[in-house]
Every structure is written in structure tokens, then in C-alpha cells.
């Protein structure tokens, strides 16, 4: 009941925000509203019991995504060209799609209906068997890391591909393309003469990094895991770059190291699979990693989550630097 009320409220705001995003002529306004959109979405996920997803949406949607959009906007026009033309065809197509979807909703299970088919099959098995087979409290992490670990490997590769793509397109001084690292402006950033952000930022960065490690290794027990940790770690380093300057940030974590992180995390993940194969199991079958299958599962999940975290942190940082360096 409370859930439904919260949902209705948040979702209504969500629709208004979305309309605002689409209507805004100024792209900066649109990006700001997208940030609100993500926060609302995350809050809604949280209300719907999806804590891990809420954390991810906040870190990625409201955090990284906004930073990237701003990075891109810094390099492109910020005003959308006014176009009075109404696209009737587009309107008809979208309306048609929506009507079809609405038509389907009336036979879909209600929100929270415990009798819904999704709660009868497969999922109960996860909830029931996880304490016994994997023995970690966060079932989401268990499904992510073990039962559907192959999907997660795919997810890491998706992130890696995005990294490869952005670096391929934009280059990264010192690693990809002809520009040396020293090409980037040194020292003064736009924020360097603002005292408050400087002080607060320097103070807060170690805590964010610590928090990232916490999210990384606490993922088996609470919401979190490699992906969220990687995003938070990247956010911390982005903060460092914002207050200390691009080049300083690239000195702390050099472009080459970023590339190694991108590839290394994925390789770490994959090598777990190869090791399980070598030990006689199927790909990513962690049971064989340890004489006790449950311990094997836990080891496997910890290592692959670490792989995820490294790759995600590496890729997101590399992408940020690629955009930022393009501006200098």
C-alpha cells in the first residue's frame, strides 16, 4: 500500500521530468533534468526493493552519466536549434507503440502480486538455494556473480567495448592517439580559485575511495558490488581531476594504467572462468575452486566482482579523461 502510494507519487514526478527533458531547448537544462530523472528513478527502484539497482542508477545515472553529458556538452553547442516542425509520423508511431503496450497491461499481474508467475518459477529457487549453495546474504550478488555470471562477464565486456570505442574515437593523451600527456593544461583548473570546493573536495576524496572499497567488498552482504564500486571509485577520481586538474589526475593514474585496468579487470574475470575449466569444471563453475564448493563460490564471486570493479573504474575514468582532454 505504502509502496503503491510512493510509486504513484514518484512516477508522476518522473513523467513530468521526462517531459521537461524532451521539451527543454537548452541542452544544459535537459541534462540537469536528466539528473533529477535519474534520482527519481533510483528512489523509485529503492521503494520497489531493488536496492542494488537503486545504488547503480544513482552512481551511473545521476553521477557518471551527468558528468559525461556535461563533458560532451562542453565540446558541442548547448542550444538545440529551434524547430517548429511537428513530426506527425513520429507522434503516430510512438502513440501506436504506447497503445499496444497499454493494451497489454490489463492482463499483466498487479504491482506486488505475490501470485505473479515471476515469483513462482526460478526466483524462489534462488532465494531458497542461495544460503545453501553460495551462502552469501545478498541474493542479487549471488545471481549476478554465479548463477548468471556469464551475463555479467558480457556486461564487463560491454563496458570495455564502450571504453575501447570512446578511446578509439576521441583518443586519450599518453595512451591512444598521437597527443602526449603533457599536452594537457597543467595545474589551474576552473575550480582552483574556489576555496570551498577545493578544501571540501580534498577532504572528501579519501572517504569516497574508502567507501568505494566498502561497496566493493561488502557487496556480498549488502547492496553493492564491483560495478557500483567501480563507478564510485571513478567518481572520486573525477572529483580529483575537477579540483586538481586533468594532468594531475592523469599522473596519479596514468593513461597506460587506465588501459591496463580496462583490460585487466576483464581478463581477471575471464581467467577465473579459465581456471575453473582447467580444474575440470564448466566455465565459471566456482565449485571447483575450493575443496568446499560453497567456499569456492564465495572465492569466485569475490574475484570476479573485483574484476568488474577494476574494469568499470578504468573504463569510466578513461572515458571521462577522453572527453575532458578533447576540450583542452
Amino acid at each position, binding site marked *: 500500500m505504502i509502496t503503491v502510494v510512493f510509486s504513484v507519487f514518484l512516477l508522476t514526478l518522473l513523467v513530468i521530468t521526462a517531459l521537461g527533458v524532451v521539451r527543454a531547448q537548452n541542452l544544459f537544462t535537459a541534462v540537469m533534468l536528466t539528473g533529477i530523472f535519474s534520482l527519481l528513478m533510483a528512489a523509485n527502484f529503492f521503494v520497489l526493493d531493488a536496492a542494488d539497482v537503486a545504488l547503480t542508477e544513482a552512481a551511473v545515472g545521476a553521477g557518471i552519466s551527468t558528468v559525461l553529458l556535461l563533458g560532451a556538452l562542453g565540446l558541442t553547442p548547448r542550444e538545440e536549434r529551434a524547430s517548429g516542425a511537428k513530426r506527425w509520423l513520429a507522434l503516430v508511431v510512438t502513440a501506436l507503440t504506447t497503445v499496444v503496450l497499454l493494451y497489454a497491461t490489463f492482463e499483466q499481474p498487479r504491482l506486488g502480486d505475490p501470485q505473479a508467475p515471476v515469483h513462482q518459477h526460478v526466483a524462489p529457487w534462488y532465494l531458497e538455494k542461495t544460503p545453501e549453495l553460495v551462502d552469501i546474504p545478498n541474493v542479487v550478488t549471488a545471481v549476478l556473480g554465479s548463477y548468471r555470471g556469464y551475463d555479467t562477464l558480457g556486461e564487463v565486456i560491454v563496458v570495455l567495448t564502450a571504453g575501447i570505442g570512446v578511446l*578509439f574515437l576521441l583518443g586519450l593523451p599518453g595512451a591512444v592517439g598521437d597527443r602526449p600527456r603533457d599536452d594537457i593544461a597543467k595545474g589551474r583548473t576552473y575550480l582552483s580559485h574556489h576555496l570551498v570546493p577545493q578544501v571540501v573536495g580534498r577532504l572528501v576524496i579519501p572517504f569516497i575511495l574508502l567507501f568505494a572499497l566498502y561497496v566493493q567488498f561488502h557487496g556480498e552482504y549488502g547492496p553493492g558490488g564491483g560495478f557500483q564500486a567501480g563507478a564510485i571509485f571513478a567518481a572520486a577520481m573525477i572529483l580529483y581531476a575537477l579540483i586538481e586538474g586533468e594532468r594531475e589526475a592523469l599522473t596519479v593514474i596514468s593513461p597506460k594504467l587506465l588501459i591496463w585496468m580496462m583490460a585487466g579487470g576483464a581478463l581477471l574475470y575471464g581467467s577465473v572462468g579459465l581456471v575453473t575449466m582447467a580444474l575440470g569444471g564448466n*566455465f565459471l563453475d566456482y565449485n571447483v575452486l575450493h575443496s568446499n564448493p560453497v567456499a569456492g563460490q564465495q572465492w569466485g564471486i569475490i574475484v570476479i566482482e573485483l574484476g568488474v570493479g577494476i574494469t568499470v573504474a578504468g573504463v569510466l575514468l578513461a572515458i571521462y579523461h577522453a572527453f575532458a582532454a578533447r576540450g583542452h
Partner: protein
Amino acid sequence: MSLTAQLPALQVVVPLLTAPLVVLLRTPGLSWAAATAASLTAFAIAVALAGQVLAGEVIHYEMGGWPAPFGISLNIDALGSLVLLLVTGASTLALVGGRDSLATEIEAGRRHLFYAAWLIVLAGLSGIAVTGDAFNVFVFMEISSLATYVLIAAGPDRRALTATFKYLIMGTIGATFYLIGVGMVYMMTGTLNFADMEVRLAEVTELRPIVVAAGFITVGLALKAAMFPLHVWLPGAYTHAPHMVTAFVAACSTKVAIYVLLRFDFFVFQNNLSQHDLHFASFLLPLALLGILVGSAVAMVESNLKRLLAHSSVAQIGYILLGASLISEAGITAAAAHMFNHALAKGAMFLAVAAFALRLSGVRLNDIAGVGRQMPLTFAALAVAGASLVGIPGTAGFVSKWLLLQAAFAQGTLGLVAVVVVVLSSLAAVVYVWRIIEAAYFCEPSAEVQAAREAPLPILAVLLLAAAANIYFGLVPAFPLSLAEMSATELLGGLQ
């Protein structure tokens, strides 16, 4: 476990994990070698798997050792094996022959990233072909799509960027539509495994969401498969991509989407939705026919060789969908066989285009005027592949066109319409292939063309191999045909 039993996983994992390694290899030569080696290994695995499938086995593999609806299981049947062969074969040929061509188009400092993305495309497409899990299909679809965007954006001029952006938008819409459909099916069945879905769907009484899901999945995949009129991303993407990328992607990526389409519609929905076959056919058939006509018509007047071939691809995709929309054993056999044969023909043609591009300044028809005499072997291969595209007997293209027409004839009146359309488009194919041949052989060469030499050995060897395959599989089509027939039996297996 024996190595043989691990093959299904290795099929995907080898290229997937070589990709990050390649990112770390900074020398272009080394990264090319690693990519080629991985691709060759993948091809060898695909051949081995095809051998097992032909022996009548359907191969299962449980990722992470978790049983089917709980974990992700891999499932390789005849059609999947056929698609695997296409994907790995096209990638291997293009890589082996493509070193020189890619070296001219992509700057050395970024080439390792390019090869890594190439391997990811390969892994993604193979991943789709082997998996038995609906969501896993989405993940690998996105893997391959994202990496394909990178490959296409690597094209030589700025139009590659806009073409890629268009592809990115449309590809993402397609994938999201697919995701919506899968979500609705999951909502009503509680499972993501194809086989399990089919079983559990039988008990679902409220079918509205399933019908809508079927619609979304079909439209989403049709977008990915470049079915008319959702093909608008294809000509630009194929035209402006690096030549070798076009050869690779054109040979297999749309076919993979069609593969998923067939799997979903035949395995999952066909038995459980009343008259689904009818809806499926009545949705697909007219669009397939229109696609054939429009694609062929545009190809007839195009003067850019790559764009011409891209529009021809739109028509050829129509052939495949036409075969599938007949919902008969003969039709699906024809569709599967045409996937294989069209990949052979179109792959070889794009390889030839790449060879021309290495020696000439452009690939418009007037740029290649008279090149037949300067590059006789390249041109001969192009002519053979063109004959296969037209469906001249003795080439692979003839076999599938024959099967397709035969399947259409068996359909009665509606089939006759299909026959007429196919015949018309074959005539159009005669025209556009002939325009290429005439330009290359019977027109007066420009000074630039007269200075042209035969293409370098690797690309030439690959090209001749592809052309020879077109002839070989035209005369001895037993191998692809038995896979195609097995696919048809499997897909229709539940229907009887």
C-alpha cells in the same frame, strides 16, 4: 571435462578474452596476429561443433555448472551451428586478407583497439548463436552492436560517423524493443530460458502480454536484421565502414538477428499462440516482398559499388525472410541455405571491393572502369560471386534461389506472387551485377586504373577462396543443405 565438451564455451570465450589482451598489445602487427589467431581458433571450433551437430547431436552446455532455467545454458542446434560457421568464417577470411586494407584505413596508434573491437563483435555474434537464454541474447546483442559501431565509425570519411550514429540509435531501439518483449514473456512465465519458456507458456492463460511481446520481439529483431522498411541504417553503415568491416559485418550480422527471430518465433511462440504462424507470415511476407523489390530497384540505379551491394543486401535479407515466412519445411530450408549462400556471395563481393579500394582511389562504378584487365583475378572472383548473387546455376546462390522458388511454388496462389517477385528481383540482380562487370571489363580504363596492379597476395588468396567456395557449394551443396534441412526440421519440429 574433456576439451570437446568445453567447445561451446570456448567458442565465445576465446575471442571474448583475446579482446582485452589485444587492447594491451600496442603494436598493430602483433594485435592483428592475435586477433587472427583467435578468429581462426573460433572457426576451427565452429567446424568441430558443426561436425557434432551434423552427427545428430544437439549440444548443451551449462555455464557455471548451473542447470538450465537457473543458470545460463548454451544450446547449439543445426541453425546455430550454421550461423556460427558464417560468423567465424567471415571474420577469419576478412582478418586474414584484410591486414593491408585495414592498415591503409586505420591509423597505427589505434589499430589495436580496432582489432579488439573486431574480436568483441565476433564474440558477441557467436554468443548469440550459441546461447539458449533470452536475456543472454540481449547482452551479446549489445556487445556485438556496440563493437560494431566502433568498427563502422572507423570508416575513412566523416560520413562514417553520421552513419554510425544512425545505426546506434536504431540498433538501440531494436535491442530495447527486444528487451521489452523478453520482459513481458518473463513476466508471464517467470523464466528466461528458451526451452523452459516454451513449456511454461503452454500454461499461461492471459495471452495478451505474450502477443504484444511477440510483436515487440519481432519488430526489434527486424530492426536489427534490417528488414524493410526498418533497413534505413544499413546502406549508410555498410557504405562508409572500412571495407573489411563491411565484408565481415555484411556477411553475418543481420543473419544473426534473423536467427534469433526464427528461434523466438518458431520455438517459443509458434506452439503457444493460436494462429501465430498466420500472423507471423502475414507480417513478414509482404515486408519481405517489398524489401526484395525496393532493395533490388535501388541497387539497379546506385553508382557507388558498396552502396549498390548494401541495397542488394536489403533485397537478399528479404529472400531469407520470405523463405521463413512460408512456414514450411522447404521454405525454412531455403531461408537457412540462403543465409549461408548469401554470406558467401556478399562476403566475397565486399572482399573484392576492398581489393579494388587498395589499388584505386574510389569504388564508384566509374572508378573501377576497365579494372578487369588490370586485376583479372580479383575481378574474376567478383564475377563469380556476382553470378552467385544473381543465382546463375553452378554457383551457391542458385541452390538457395532454387529452393526458395520451389518452396514458394508449393504455396499456391500467394506463392506465385512470391515467385514473380523473386524472379523480378533476380532480373534486377542481373542488371546490377552486370553493371559492375561491364564497368570493370568493357569500359575504357582511366590512367589510374591502367597503373593498377593485382591486389596483394593475402587478400587475393582469401578472395579466390571465397569465390571458389561459391562454386564448390553450388555444385556440392550437401554440407550447408543438410544443416539447413536439419534446422527446418528442428524449427518446425514442434508444429506437427
